[in-house]
């Protein structure tokens, strides 16, 4: 089996499922190219700036937004986008959750395929409106650029 599966629990308290029917989610995929040469952070990706100013991203000096795609997703619906590195990214809206403090959260699945091979398959939950940076690096060298996916979803209130 050519796969490694690792499951991590990063929090013990999981939010409860919302009682109301699962609403649609407005999900945004930002495709960003990071480079080692200068250029700064694209002002269009200000929501990700706090991440990019810190390790491990601070090794890269230029963050350019290549594409933004926003899609309304019904529960369990997916959207696929071709990436500049010849991979495809499929984002699935799994479910809507409400935290104990009333915070809206979304559970998503991200699959990255390279041809027939599924390079990455992850399920994660995060606060609505907050981005999860997913960095895809080809090689750790001084000259190599890096692709970063910024994934976020909002729940219409």
């Amino acid at each position: 089996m050519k796969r490694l599966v690792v499951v991590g629990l990063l929090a013990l308290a999981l939010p409860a499922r919302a009682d109301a029917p699962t609403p649609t989610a407005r999900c945004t995929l930002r495709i960003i190219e990071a480079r080692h040469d200068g250029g700064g952070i694209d002002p269009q990706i200000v929501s990700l700036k706090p991440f990019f100013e810190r390790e491990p991203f601070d090794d890269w000096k230029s963050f350019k937004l290549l594409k933004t795609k926003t899609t309304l997703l019904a529960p369990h619906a997916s959207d696929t986008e071709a990436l500049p590195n010849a991979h495809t990214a499929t984002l699935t809206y799994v479910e809507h959750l409400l935290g104990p403090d009333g915070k809206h959260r979304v559970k998503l699945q991200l699959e990255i395929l390279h041809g027939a091979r599924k390079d990455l398959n992850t399920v994660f939950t995060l606060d609505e409106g907050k981005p999860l940076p997913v960095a895809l690096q080809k090689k750790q060298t001084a000259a190599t650029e890096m692709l970063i996916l910024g994934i976020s979803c909002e729940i219409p209130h």
Partner: protein
Amino acid sequence: MSVSDEELQRYFDGELDDATRRRVEGALDDDDRARLDALAEVRAALSNALLGEAAAIDLTGAVGEAIARDAERAAPVIPLAARRPRRRGMVMGLSTGAGLLVAAAAAFLFLFRPVAVPGAPINNAEIESLEVDGLSATVLSVDSHSGTENATILFAMEDD
């Protein structure tokens, strides 16, 4: 594979005695060297600060339980309980699949204890499951200054 995962990791960490180190060096094959390269690349991508703050962590139990719950649909994994965190406090899962190694696609996952960093970004993300093929993946989670929220990123390194 001529060198065990444990030996390779300890060789990478510089934990072997001279005799064992020489034996391992003599037994390294291309797969082993590819795995060492992957280890070095992942280590290079991480901050010394995070590595320092992550000392003395032991997530083995929680990760092991999660894997057990997911066992019905998950691909085979090495039980993490057998891989106690070493000095830097990392928990590592390493596939034994020969194909993965031949493809120089050794994959590693490191879970770090959240650390307090003033002004850290927030997303309160929880990675519930992660499967990779042909790349290395790292999950980094850092607490906010208040300690009540966190910022998580997923860092994946492709092979050549």
